[in-house]
């Protein structure tokens, strides 16, 4: 990011000569943003490095599966490992209890065998003019791999996080079940974020806010739709002017459709999780690795801060798998090999018409 770097495009942000010094768990992202890790290395890669500071992430839950808890656990554990202050709000009576279920970082990288990096096309020389734009991304990925144990950890969901991570620092828990309106939560968020103001200088630490099941029906305020929306808007504004990332999960089936849309528009990064039906023969025929999948993750929106250029993903749906039943991985969906003897393909093996029934295939 020094001034000596050649410009990649005609329009590029003129950055100051020295990169700001960043605390642990933070790295520089494109367009002058600073990123922090989501706790899931695959998700970081999909989103282009991580969550940018100042963004609001919203996760749409599926009422039939608890996968949003996996995302939250990894997010919170990553913050605690990096000693980042954390505010956690949930509709449970005792939110502190949830901290006991956070995973601990995996021991070493060697026991996890991963496929080869897809961008390591060393044997293939691509002679195209866009190679100069790739240079920036390549740098990012290299940096990520070397300093991976610093920026982003693999979490072993079977082992609980050590006590000293939780006890030693600023971890604040709020129960949102009984509060008649959102003023308590609002105040807690304001106090939390006032400790993390954004200056132009170095960022010593960034904070994380995790709000689980925000419009959960047990909460007294859950039918006050306008109040909830204005809370989200004020949270988004506060987060934008501070060094933190807020993640809110909510079940969209419990909101009226118009409010559900409004909430989705509020998000900078919008993800959703979906449950998978057990023993679904059609799905098993269609996808490889169906047996190991526990759910789907959809990326609807990726944060665009300081830029008008959207990040266009190759795929927006990923399968959630637990590798060795401990590590959360996200994989692209791959079509299962078409059985040549079934004879129905008509040479159109590209389409999914190998089965005679047509399902709701979204192309």
């Amino acid at each position, binding site marked *: 990011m020094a001034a000596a770097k050649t410009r990649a495009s005609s329009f590029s942000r003129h950055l100051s000569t020295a990169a700001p010094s960043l605390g642990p768990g933070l790295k520089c992202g494109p367009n002058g943003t600073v990123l922090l890790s989501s706790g899931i290395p695959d998700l970081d890669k999909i989103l282009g490095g991580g969550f940018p500071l100042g963004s609001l992430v919203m996760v749409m839950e599926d*009422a*039939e*599966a*608890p*996968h949003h808890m996996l995302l939250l656990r990894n997010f919170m554990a990553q913050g605690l490992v990096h000693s980042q202050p954390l505010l956690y709000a949930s*509709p*449970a*009576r005792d939110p502190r209890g949830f901290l006991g279920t956070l995973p601990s970082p995996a021991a070493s990288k060697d026991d996890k065998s991963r*496929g*080869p990096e*897809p961008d390591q096309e060393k044997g293939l020389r691509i002679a195209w003019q866009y190679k100069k734009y790739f240079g920036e991304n390549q740098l990012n990925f290299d940096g990520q791999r070397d300093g991976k144990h610093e920026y982003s950890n693999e979490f072993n969901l079977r082992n609980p996080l050590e006590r000293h991570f939780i006890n030693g620092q600023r971890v604040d828990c709020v129960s949102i*079940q009984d509060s008649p309106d959102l003023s308590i939560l609002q105040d807690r968020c304001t106090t939390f974020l006032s400790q993390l103001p954004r200056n132009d200088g170095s960022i010593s630490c960034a904070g994380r806010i995790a709000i689980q099941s925000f419009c959960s*029906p*047990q*909460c*007294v305020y*859950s*039918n006050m739709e306008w109040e909830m929306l204005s809370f989200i808007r004020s949270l988004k504004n506060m987060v934008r002017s501070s060094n933190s990332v807020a993640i809110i999960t909510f*079940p969209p*089936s*419990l909101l*009226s459709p118009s409010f559900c849309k409004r909430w989705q528009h509020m998000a900078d990064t919008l993800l959703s999780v*979906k*449950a*998978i*039906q*057990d*023993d*679904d*023969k*059609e*799905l098993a025929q*269609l*996808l*490889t690795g169906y047996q190991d999948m*526990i*759910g*789907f993750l*959809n990326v609807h929106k990726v944060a665009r801060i300081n830029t008008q250029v959207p990040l266009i993903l*190759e*795929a*927006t*749906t990923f399968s959630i798998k637990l590798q060795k039943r401990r590590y959360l991985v996200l994989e*692209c*969906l*791959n*079509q299962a090999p078409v059985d040549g003897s079934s004879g129905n393909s008509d040479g159109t093996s590209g389409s*999914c018409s190998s089965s005679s029934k047509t*399902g*709701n*295939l*979204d*192309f």
Partner: protein
Amino acid sequence: MAKSICIALREGALEGELAPALTIKDSIASPFGLQVFDHVLSQLFSSILAGKSPSQGLILVSFSRSPSFYLELLKNKGINVASSDKRIHILDCYNDPLGWKDQIVEISSTVTVFREVKHMDKLFNSIIELGRGLVGGGKIRFSIAIDSVDEMLRRASVSSVARLLSNLRSHEQISSIFWLLHSDLHKARVTAVLEYLSSMVASLEPSHQLANGQRGDLENFALIKHNSKKGKFHVRFKKRNGRVHVMSEEVHMEQSGINFTPLTSEGAINQGLVPKVQFNLQLSEKERIDKANVVLPFEHQGDNGKPLQIYDGRRSLVDSKHERAVAVENVQTKEESESESESDMQRGEIIYYRDSDDEMPDSDEDPDDDLDI
């Protein structure tokens, strides 16, 4: 399947988990909800009596039917309530829910009258108190059956009912809980809330949908008659690993009660949204090794720069070792051919049929050179 529901309720919650909760949902088109509720109730209670369940007692909160009905029901099923009154207790919210009557004649010792159904927290306290009275304190668990949640929703807000149910689920002494809901009495959001709070949803649907909901039509009359005796029973289980298990059965109403049979015809398979699927363009380890081993069919190629003979279908490989007199300048050493036939299993095979023997082997010329544009 009804059996699996009963088993799940019987087994109850594991340590540290929320108690399994069942919603039985029906509608006017298929109104067997109460009968299904009775069935599940009697099954669960007999398992409790037989000692098959970690739950030691059952609290029945009755809103829509009188407690004496339930006592009769259990007697008809062969369960002697008098001897088992230490195991079941009925919270009567039917006779005087709002406390209008001055005096209530007590029906039996197993029934307690509750008069403040508008206050969900008081209801919660009563349920817990009764349960503790039944099984004692500590870690001993009991189950709860709620006659119908509709009556609760009539008098209290959705969020207070939701709070009651989720607090019951997370209470350490509750083993399992189930309730009945008539889905057409409420807005869709209410049904969604109750489904959100439960771990199993059993819904009753008519076996044949009525055309346009017109009920006066003669053709539909037969369907209505059919629907009043039979229906479909769908269950969605939320499993611990995050997957959803869907099952279907047919349900028949008979004099003696209700019967569940497996589906006769092919039921509609749940078609969830199948997302956009890509081809797997990456190679696995084995595939990469195979790819490296494939010999491409250019006759100039060779391992050591020597020309290589490719099997071209006119001669067998074995013969080629002996028939050296061919009009091809390919030379092959014995070791090479042996190793080739041995390693044939690992290598991919390219089957290349030469057009004619006169053809010169691949030259280095670019065939595009003779294009005259």
